[in-house]
C-alpha cells in the first residue's frame, strides 16, 4: 500500500535536498515570470494554450522578429518566397543539434509542422499544405493559399522547434521532466507552479545575428520562478532574493526608480485590456445596450488612476503599434457618458430611484466576470463603478485565472474584464471568429458579414499590404458591432538588480527571449 506514493515522495525530498545545497555563486540568475505567465502545465509548444518566457530559452525559432517588427534569420539562414506566394523555401543553418544530439534537418521540420494539425494552434499552419524536404537542409513549404503572415507565425513562441519524435514518443509526458529543443538552455527541472530551472547548452553555436554574444550563453543556469502575487515578486527583488522581474506592475514603478540598486526598462507592450460583451445574452443582444456599456468605460480615468498614467488608453482591439489598429476614427470607442445614457433611454431602460435602470420591471443587472489576479480585481471594481454611473448594476464573479477559460466555454458570461497578449492583427480572428464560440470567442460573436471579412483577411491576402488592408476592414467592422469595450494598453516594464546583472543595451524582439538572454551575464 502506498508504495508508489512513497517512491515519488523520496524522489521529491531528494530534489528538495539538492535545491537546498545549491551554490549561490557563478553565472546564475533568478528571474520572476510575469504573473500572466504563471501556471504553464508543460513545455510543449505545439500543444500549448499559453507560453512563458522560458519557452524561447529552450526552443529556437526558424525566424527571429526584432522590436521594429522586422524579420531576421535564426535557425533558417535565409528564405525565398515564390512570386505567387504559393511556396516558401527555408535554408536551414548547418550543424544545429537538439539537446538530445539529433541534428535539425528538413525532414524534422516537415514532421513538426504535421504535429500542429491536431492541436489548438493548428491555425498557425492552416495555410501550409505540406512541407517537402528538398535536401537535408532545405525545407519547402507548399501553401494552400498565400500567407503573408507565415514569417510572423514562425517567429512566435508557439513555433519554437522541438524534436517531433520526442513529443510523439512521450505523449502527455512531454515537456514535464524533459523538453527537447535546440535553444541556448536545456530544461533541468520543472516544478509546476513553482519554478523552472534551465542549464546552459554548451554546444550552442547557432545564435541569431541579433544576439551580440557568439556561442554558448554567458549564464550557466537560470531559474524562472512563478509568483502569483506581484507584491511578493517586488519584495523578492527589493530584498535581493531574485535578480529580475520580467513584468512590473505600474504600482511599483516609482518605488523601483527610488531604489539605487534597481534598474527599470520598458519595451512597447503587446497587451490590451478589454471587456468582452456577450452578444447572445440579454440585454446585450441589443446593440444599443452594448454600445452604451462600451461608452460607459472611462479609459482615461483608468489609465491615470489605476495604472498611474503609464501606458496608453485603448480605443479599439489592437495595440497601437500595429497598422491594422488605424481604423476610421469615428469607429474608435471612447468614454461618452451622455451618449451612453441616451442610448439606454432609447433602448427602453429607464433610470430608477436606486440608480439602476429598469425595463418592464426588470432591473438592468448583469454579471461581470473577472480573474483572481489582484490587478484584474481592482480594475473590475472600477469598471463596476463606471457601469453603475450610467445605471448598469454589475455583479462581480471572480474565477481562478487558470479555470476561467473553461468557464467561458459554457457561454454563460455577460460581461468580463480580461486582457490578451499578442502583437498581430490575427488576434481579431482568434477572439471573434464564429467557429470559436465560448472561448476564445468570449463575446459569442458570429456575424455573417464579419465572417466574410474574416475569411478574406485570413486567406485572401497575397501581400503584406493587402493583408493590412483586409484586417483593418475586418477589425473596423467587428468594432462597429460592439462585441467588446477597449480599456487600456500597458507598456511592458521590467526591473533588474543592476549590482548583479548586466543586461544587453537594448532588447531585440517584442519581448525578452532567448535571443536576448544569451547576452545577459552576472557581475563577478
Amino acid at each position, binding site marked *: *500500500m502506498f508504495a508508489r*506514493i512513497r517512491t*515519488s515522495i523520496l524522489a521529491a525530498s531528494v530534489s528538495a535536498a539538492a*535545491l537546498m545545497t545549491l551554490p549561490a555563486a557563478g553565472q546564475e540568475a533568478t528571474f520572476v515570470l510575469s504573473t500572466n505567465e504563471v501556471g504553464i*502545465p508543460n513545455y510543449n509548444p505545439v500543444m500549448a494554450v499559453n507560453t512563458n518566457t522560458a519557452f524561447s530559452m529552450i526552443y529556437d525559432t526558424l525566424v527571429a522578429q526584432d522590436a521594429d517588427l522586422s524579420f531576421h534569420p535564426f535557425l533558417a539562414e535565409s528564405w525565398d518566397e515564390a512570386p505567387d506566394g504559393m511556396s516558401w523555401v527555408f535554408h536551414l543553418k548547418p550543424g544545429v543539434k537538439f539537446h538530445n544530439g539529433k541534428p535539425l534537418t528538413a525532414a524534422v521540420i516537415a514532421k513538426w509542422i504535421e504535429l500542429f494539425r491536431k492541436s489548438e494552434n493548428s491555425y498557425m499552419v492552416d495555410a501550409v499544405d505540406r512541407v517537402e524536404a528538398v535536401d537535408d537542409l532545405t525545407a519547402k513549404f507548399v501553401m494552400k493559399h498565400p500567407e503573408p503572415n507565415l514569417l510572423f507565425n514562425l517567429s512566435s513562441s508557439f513555433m519554437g522547434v522541438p524534436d517531433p519524435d520526442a513529443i510523439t514518443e512521450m505523449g*502527455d509526458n512531454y515537456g514535464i521532466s524533459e523538453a527537447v529543443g535546440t535553444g541556448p538552455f536545456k530544461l533541468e527541472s520543472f516544478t509546476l*507552479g513553482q519554478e523552472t530551472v534551465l542549464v546552459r547548452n554548451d554546444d550552442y553555436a547557432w545564435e541569431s545575428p541579433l544576439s551580440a554574444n557568439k556561442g554558448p550563453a554567458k549564464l550557466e543556469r537560470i531559474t524562472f520562478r512563478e509568483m502569483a502575487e506581484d507584491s511578493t515578486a517586488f519584495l523578492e527583488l527589493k530584498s*535581493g532574493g531574485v535578480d529580475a522581474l520580467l513584468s512590473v506592475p505600474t504600482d511599483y514603478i516609482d518605488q523601483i526608480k527610488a531604489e539605487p540598486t534597481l534598474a527599470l526598462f520598458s519595451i512597447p507592450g503587446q497587451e490590451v485590456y478589454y471587456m468582452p460583451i456577450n452578444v447572445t445574452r440579454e440585454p446585450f443582444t441589443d446593440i444599443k445596450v452594448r454600445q452604451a456599456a462600451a461608452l460607459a468605460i472611462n479609459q482615461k480615468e483608468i489609465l491615470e488612476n489605476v495604472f498611474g498614467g503609464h501606458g496608453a488608453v485603448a480605443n479599439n482591439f489592437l495595440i497601437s503599434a500595429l497598422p491594422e489598429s488605424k481604423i476610421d476614427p469615428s469607429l474608435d470607442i471612447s468614454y461618452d457618458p451622455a451618449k451612453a445614457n441616451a442610448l439606454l433611454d432609447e433602448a427602453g431602460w429607464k433610470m430608477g430611484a436606486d440608480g439602476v435602470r429598469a425595463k418592464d420591471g426588470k432591473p438592468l443587472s448583469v454579471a461581470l466576470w473577472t480573474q483572481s489576479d489582484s490587478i484584474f480585481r481592482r480594475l473590475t471594481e472600477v469598471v463596476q463603478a463606471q457601469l453603475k454611473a450610467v445605471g448598469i448594476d454589475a455583479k462581480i464573479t471572480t474565477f481562478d485565472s*487558470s479555470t476561467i477559460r473553461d468557464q467561458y466555454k459554457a457561454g454563460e458570461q455577460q460581461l468580463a474584464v480580461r486582457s490578451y497578449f499578442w502583437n498581430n492583427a490575427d488576434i481579431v480572428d482568434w477572439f471573434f471568429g464564429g467557429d470559436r464560440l465560448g472561448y476564445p470567442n468570449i463575446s459569442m460573436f458570429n456575424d455573417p458579414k464579419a465572417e466574410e471579412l474574416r475569411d478574406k483577411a485570413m486567406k485572401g491576402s497575397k501581400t503584406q499590404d493587402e493583408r493590412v488592408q483586409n484586417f483593418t476592414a475586418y477589425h473596423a467592422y467587428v468594432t462597429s458591432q460592439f462585441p467588446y469595450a477597449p480599456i487600456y494598453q500597458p507598456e511592458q516594464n521590467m526591473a533588474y538588480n543592476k549590482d548583479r546583472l548586466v543586461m544587453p543595451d537594448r532588447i531585440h524582439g517584442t519581448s525578452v527571449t532567448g535571443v536576448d538572454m544569451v547576452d545577459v551575464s552576472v557581475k563577478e
Partner: protein
Amino acid sequence: MPGFLIRRVLLLLPVFLAVSVVIFLILHLIPGDPVDNLVKVGTPAAKRAEITARYGLDRPLVVQYGIWLWAVMHGDLGTSIVTHRPVASLIGQALPHSLALGGAALAFSSALGILLGVVAAAWRDRWPDQIIMGGVLVGSTLPSFWLGLLLILAFAVQLGWFPVSGARGWDSLILPVLTIGLGGTALVARVTRVAMIEAGGRDFVMLLHAKGLPPGRIRLRHVLRHALIPVVTILALRIGWILGGAVTVEYVFARPGLGSTLIKGLNQHDYPVVQACLLMLAVAVMLGTLLGDVVQALMDPRVRGALG
C-alpha cells in the same frame, strides 16, 4: 503493547472506510455532472462517452467506489485533470514542504508553549502570568495572513534577515514557522498552564513536598510529566492542522505544500487532486490520533502498568 497497538489500528479501519466514502462522494456531491468537469465544453458525444467510460462513471456508484478504493490502496491516486500528471507525484512534491513547515511549527509552539505555560503556572495570577497569558492571547487573535505580511515587511524587507518567499533552504522556514507557531503556542501554553495547576494540587505532590524534595525539582520532574499528558493529546489530535492548516501562510509566503495544493485543486475543479489531498490529511489525522493514544499510554504510568 503490541496487542494494544493492533487493537487501536483495527479500530481505525472502519473510520478509514467511512472517511474514504465521504471523500469519494465529494466529487458527486458537487452540483452538476462530474463529466462536465472532466471534458471541455463542445466535446463530441462519442468522446464524452469514452471519457465517462474511462473514469468508470457509467457504472453504479458502489462499483465506482470499489474501483477507486482499490486503486488508492495500490498507490494510484489518479491523474490530475488540469496538469495531466499523476496526483501521487504532485503530492510527493508538496508533502516534504508541508512536513518541514508543520514539524518545525509544532516543535516551536510546543517548546515555547510548554515553557510559557510552566512559567505562568508557577507565578499564577501574578505579573509573569498576566503578561504571558496576555501576550499569548494577542498572538492567537491576529489573523495569520496579516501577521505574516507584517513579519515580511519587518524582517524580510526592512531588516533583510530572511527570504521573503519560497521554500529554498532553512532560513525561508523561519518567518512562516513564527507566523503559524504563535497561534499554536497560545493553545499549548493555555493547556499546559491549566494542567500544571491541576496536577500541582494532586495528593502525590503534597506527599513529595512533605518528603522535603526541592519545589523546582517536583515541578519539573513530577508535575510536568502529569501535565504533559493532556498537552500531548491535544497536539496529536490536531496533527491535521499541522499539515493542512498552514494554507494561509503558504499562500502569503508563496510556499508549496499540501494545503495550497488542495486549495489550488479546489479552485481549478481538479477533483482527483482534491480527493487525494483530503485522503492524505485524513490519514494523517488518524495516525495523529493513534500516536496521541500511544504516547498517552506510554506516559501515563497507570496505563503503562496495565499494559505490563
